[in-house]
């Protein structure tokens, strides 16, 4: 039992700290996606949006020399993408799934094209990454400190946004309208809500979240841009939304579980072990499928998810 002997405190600390680190970007993307899905729009285009957000963040950081500006640029890029996507999701008479899938392919092509245009064939510079920020006092706590309070700034921003998103969704008038539109757009319309406008907000929130997630990847984790930088993290965010039952705080837990599974298989590869790492990797997806399947309990997905709405 070579494995158990290595399970000391240091292992747990480094494992959980890695889990938190990996959970950050996808959680940020998932928070936005919750708003889109709660308003009835399944934004599968989140994958491409993260990619374009990462690209704008990287280019801004290289051009301006300021990583912080780069971080903001990702959000702005996401917002621009959101305007296009909102028009396609809500105005074009096509299914949201179709628009999302096709948009992801477009974004992949576009990101490579823009990158080749701006950077040419020269080797791309790495940008100075956002350093982990040690929260005063808290970071010196044993165990909790190194896991939670020695992370880069975007993580704290994400945690703050999770709380804000929860408050906004469940304790404000806007959140109530958003959920109403996602459950039953017709009834919401009859009650005097502007369905398309509220859904537009949902899509915009989702794309800004995804764009910032892209910045997060670039500015705090990788420091570079590659066209395979996102590699499915948008779809992981979709899984987190489902696993978190369309609630920001539960999504926080879900993101942490996904991160933990991912980090665990990375650390376990260091040891001799009989369990293939793919089992751990697949586990969160299997749990998500179970949560979606309708086999255990009722699925709580928004009633009008993926259903287009047209004014009569």
């Amino acid at each position, binding site marked *: 039992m070579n494995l158990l002997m290595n399970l000391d405190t240091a292992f747990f600390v480094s494992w959980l700290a890695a889990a938190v680190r990996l959970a950050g970007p996808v959680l940020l993307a998932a928070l936005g996606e919750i708003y889109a899905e709660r308003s009835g729009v*399944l934004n*599968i285009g989140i994958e491409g949006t993260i990619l374009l957000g990462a690209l704008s963040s990287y280019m801004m950081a290289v051009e301006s020399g300021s990583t912080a500006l780069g971080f903001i640029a990702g959000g702005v890029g996401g917002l621009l993408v959101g305007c296009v996507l909102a028009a*396609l999701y809500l*105005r*074009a*008479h*096509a*299914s949201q*799934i*179709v*628009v999302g*899938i*096709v*948009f*992801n*392919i*477009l974004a*992949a*092509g*576009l990101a*490579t*094209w823009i990158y*080749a*245009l701006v950077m040419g064939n020269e080797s791309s510079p790495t940008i100075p990454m956002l350093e982990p920020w040690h929260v005063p006092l808290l970071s010196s706590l044993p165990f909790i400190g190194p896991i939670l309070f020695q992370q880069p700034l975007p993580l704290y921003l994400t945690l703050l946004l999770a709380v804000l998103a929860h408050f906004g969704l469940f304790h404000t008038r806007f959140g109530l309208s958003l959920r109403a539109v996602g459950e039953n757009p017709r009834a919401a319309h009859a009650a005097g809500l502007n369905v398309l406008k509220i859904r537009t907000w949902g899509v915009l929130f989702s794309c800004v979240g995804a764009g910032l997630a892209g910045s997060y990847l670039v500015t705090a984790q990788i420091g570079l841009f590659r066209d395979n930088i996102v590699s*499915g993290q948008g*779809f992981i965010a*979709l*899984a987190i939304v*489902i696993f978190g039952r369309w609630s920001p705080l539960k999504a926080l837990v879900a993101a942490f579980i996904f991160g933990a599974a991912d980090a665990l298989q990375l650390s376990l590869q260091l040891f001799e072990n009989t369990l*293939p790492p*793919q*089992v751990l*990797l*697949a586990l969160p*997806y*299997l749990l*998500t*499928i179970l949560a*979606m*399947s*309708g*086999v255990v309990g009722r*699925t709580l*997905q928004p009633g009008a*998810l*993926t259903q287009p709405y047209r004014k009569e």
Partner: protein
Amino acid sequence: MKKLLERRLAPAESTGALVLTSFCGILAAFIIAGLLFIPFGGNPLSAYGFLFDAAFGSLRSFGLSLVQSTPLMLIALATIVVWRAGLGYIGFEGCFLLGAAAASWIALSGTPQGFPWAIPALLYWPLVLIAAFLAGAIWAGWVGALRVKFGGNDVLISLMANYVALFIVQYLVSGPMRAPGDLPQTPRLPVESWLPFVMNGMRAHWGIAIALVATVFVFWLMRATPAGFEIKIAGLNPRAARYSGVDVNRRQMGAVLLGGGLAALAGLCAVLGVQHRLMEGISGGVGFIGVVVALLARLNPLLVIPTAILYGGLEVGGSAMQRQTGLPTSVVLILQSLVVLLILAGDLLRYYRINLPGGRQSRSPLAEEQS
């Protein structure tokens, strides 16, 4: 006086309007994508000329385009069958991967990495086709069953299932099916298990025949059989279908099994026709581009053939163009998706009628969008 642009109560459904709006969408996509060559110092016209010449100019390149289009065709057909039944399944990447895995497993029969007993040559082809088809059918089937029996969301479940399939293949190539060596991949498949070339000088393998047979089959199924008719009405209006005695659940399950199997055959073609070994990343997103092909063909099986050949050709031409002229192949990806997006956006035009002053009512929905 009438307004120049008048909104229709219902979209124009005539074939003319459909063809015209689609044509505008395609044209606009080609124009926009063509402009993307200019910053790289390319002339759009000559770039397109080069691209199409490299894709269809000679027998050899046409063969390569056919090879590239084969999986697209099969996945587009799968999409048609499944989506016509009213499902939103998009897990074709997963079916593709498992089909490829099953095909390699049979092809490696008799070796430590494959099926434990050697398979006689006569039985090889039926067995490998059946194994791949079954793998895909089962993989799509459980997602379909969750949707049909328990009301699960098949769009999201199938997206997640793609990842599970990815990990299964990752496990296979790094574990039980791994070849000795550094890379996580299977040994090269024996030459006699490969799909042979159709003819000398043309690099197309017999996978294209599988795709064409599948096309005819799907066309016949949807057009001329009660089962196909029931699949279609189950998709158009499940409630009405149920009232008229159609077993909607059964038809949807049948459709998803067939679709999964077809997508798995695409994996078979890729592994036995092109790669000749199973490895990670073998799909390269073809499961999603195939869906785009189906959409562009407006879910019509016969239109899938030209559309898939066009898209496969674009990929072949695009990479040849990048190799020889340095123009970025990403334009092809942009073009492939832009065509569909602009056709979708172009559908909005069918809601408008142009009233030319003095003239009779024009049906042309051309007007605004090019600007």
